[in-house]
């Protein structure tokens, strides 16, 4: 599905990621993890064609990513960004219908099929009740779910989520990931998500890729790479990993830092002399 060879990514003179090589196969559920600033978002930007590589190639299917026409690219891959700010009061249904743009021809008349897809996607993300509400008047979490619905309405083969559920509460997070897992298992939707929530990743991602210091530090099935050694190394934090007795997934527990970082106390000078 995706094939990355010798990929160098960066902004201007600064390289963020160097010499990446990996493949993502159809139907994978891949979590991209790593500390802040390690380049998770940069990688997703490049894979979605937003950021041109400074070296190396990205192939989607049989084609080079940059050679794909925009609409065709949007039929294959949909992206849910970290945050979305809309200034104009489109209704949520109008926003979700925009997800049908890559599948419309000519001047973009909305067909019954488009409506069906939009309504279905809204049902999947439990946003149906927001249909006629202006997107400018709903909460951040609701907005994020509407944007996820828009991505699903694209009917993509691959879905990229860039910290897309960070602003949602626990219940909504799980609901979204259940939907993704369901689409992944029943329809072969390939899911790539950059995330911070280790336990959410462990629960749903079957493969994890750890990005650190400009390269891929570890990459493998969750069961094998979700270990205290790897987590500790990547996040420079002691971690314990346990397996949950009932649902048989690993989870990580933070351990307080052994040598807490203390600020040097400087005596405050009060008043002048």
């Amino acid at each position, binding site marked *: 599905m995706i094939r990355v060879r010798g990929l160098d990514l960066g902004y201007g003179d600064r390289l963020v990621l160097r010499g990446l090589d990996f493949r993502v196969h159809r139907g994978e559920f891949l979590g991209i993890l790593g500390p802040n600033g390690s380049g998770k978002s940069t990688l997703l930007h490049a894979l*979605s*064609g*937003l950021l041109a590589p400074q070296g190396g190639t990205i192939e989607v299917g049989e084609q080079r990513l940059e050679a794909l*026409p*925009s*609409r*065709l*690219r*949007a*039929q294959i891959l*949909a*992206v849910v*960004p970290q945050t*979305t*700010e*809309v*200034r*104009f*009061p*489109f*209704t949520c*249904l*109008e*926003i979700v219908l*925009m*997800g049908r*743009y*890559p599948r*419309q021809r000519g*001047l*973009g008349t*909305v067909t*019954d099929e488009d*409506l*069906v897809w*939009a*309504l279905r996607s809204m049902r999947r993300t439990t946003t*149906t009740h927001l*249909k*006629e509400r*202006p997107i*400018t*008047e709903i909460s951040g979490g609701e907005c994020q779910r509407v*944007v996820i619905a*828009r*991505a699903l309405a*694209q009917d993509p083969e691959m879905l990229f989520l860039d910290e897309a559920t960070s602003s949602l509460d626990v219940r909504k997070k799980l609901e979204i990931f259940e939907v993704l897992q369901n689409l992944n298992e029943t329809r072969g939707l390939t899911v790539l998500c950059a995330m911070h929530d280790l336990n959410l990743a462990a629960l749903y991602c079957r493969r994890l890729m750890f990005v650190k210091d400009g390269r891929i530090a570890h990459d493998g099935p969750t069961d094998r790479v979700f270990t205290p050694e790897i987590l500790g190394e990547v996040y420079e934090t002691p971690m314990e990993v346990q397996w949950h007795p009932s649902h048989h997934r690993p989870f990580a527990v933070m351990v307080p830092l052994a040598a807490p970082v203390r600020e040097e106390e400087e005596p405050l000078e009060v008043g002048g002399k």
Partner: protein
Amino acid sequence: MKVTSLPAVEIDRTLELAEARSRRQAGRRRFAAACLALGLGLAVSVILGTGIGRMPVGWGTIAAVLLGKLGLAAPAVDRTQEVVIWGIRLSRVVLSGLVGASLATAGVVFQGLLMNPLADPFTIGVSTGAAFGVALLVMLGVGGSFLGLSPLPLGALVGALGAMGAVLVLSRESGRIRKESLILAGIVVSTFLSALISLIKSLDEESLSAIVFWIMGSFSGRGWIHVGFLLPYAAAGFALTAWHARELDILALGEEPSHHLGVSVSRVRFRLLLGSSLLTAGAVAVSGVIGFVGLVVPHLVRVLAGPSHGRLLWLSALTGALTMIWADVLARVLLASGQELPVGVVTAILGGPFFFYLLKSRRSRGIW
């Protein structure tokens, strides 16, 4: 008897689809009704605007002249009245309508593209470019006529397009046009050109009043030739913007989402900028700088009809035409002395307070 029935879920979904479909149909009907009402209002306004003026003309005479010109009746006999009605009044009403429609449409596009409901057709310096073109010609004392047209509109057009070109070149960063750099480049270009205009004004005091009068905007003394001059730019601009109305909706969400939804952002944004700049440049070239219509009209229509550009463009164009026709009628008749006001002054005096009211009103608050 066995009744075959759909599962409850299926019925729910069918109902939901039917409801969504009928809502959209109702929306389309409302849009059609609004277009029809505005179109009728426009037709009535054209006739009323032709009838109102210093020299009284009867409605029967207007009808006779119009029908005669359209070849539906015998040509009118009174040459003076024919010239006043057809050559002076009607051409001016048509021109003001066309300019109003152009500025309002350009306003819609700029507001959508820059994701800023406070943008207007002059935000990226198109008007200053036009004013500079005129100031330069006035200073150089270029006179005469070109195809029966004074050279000033041409200077304005070249100035406006030149300024737009400069802004586009300055705002390109590694092959992409970003909206932040677009606004910044617009400010740079228009500040620079403003300084040059001031320089011209102070170097050549004789041209001062001509430049100032032109900048304030007026339809005084304009005729069919100006309509003919504006028409190709207006037509090309309308066509480009209407063609990309759907993309404009998506671009109003921002650059990244547009990219992810399959819009080739740079290309479409360039076309839309080109279209709206053609509209603005054409309008400024024939009438000078007329403010507020391009800002207030799209804003008002968006509050009333929602932000979807497929509708916004048409409704704004019609409303802009109506507004400008009546603003120009006011400019002609407001002063008892019979002197004309620059129409730009009328739109600013009416538009300012009205815009303030819009900002404060409850319904538009969601937009900010």
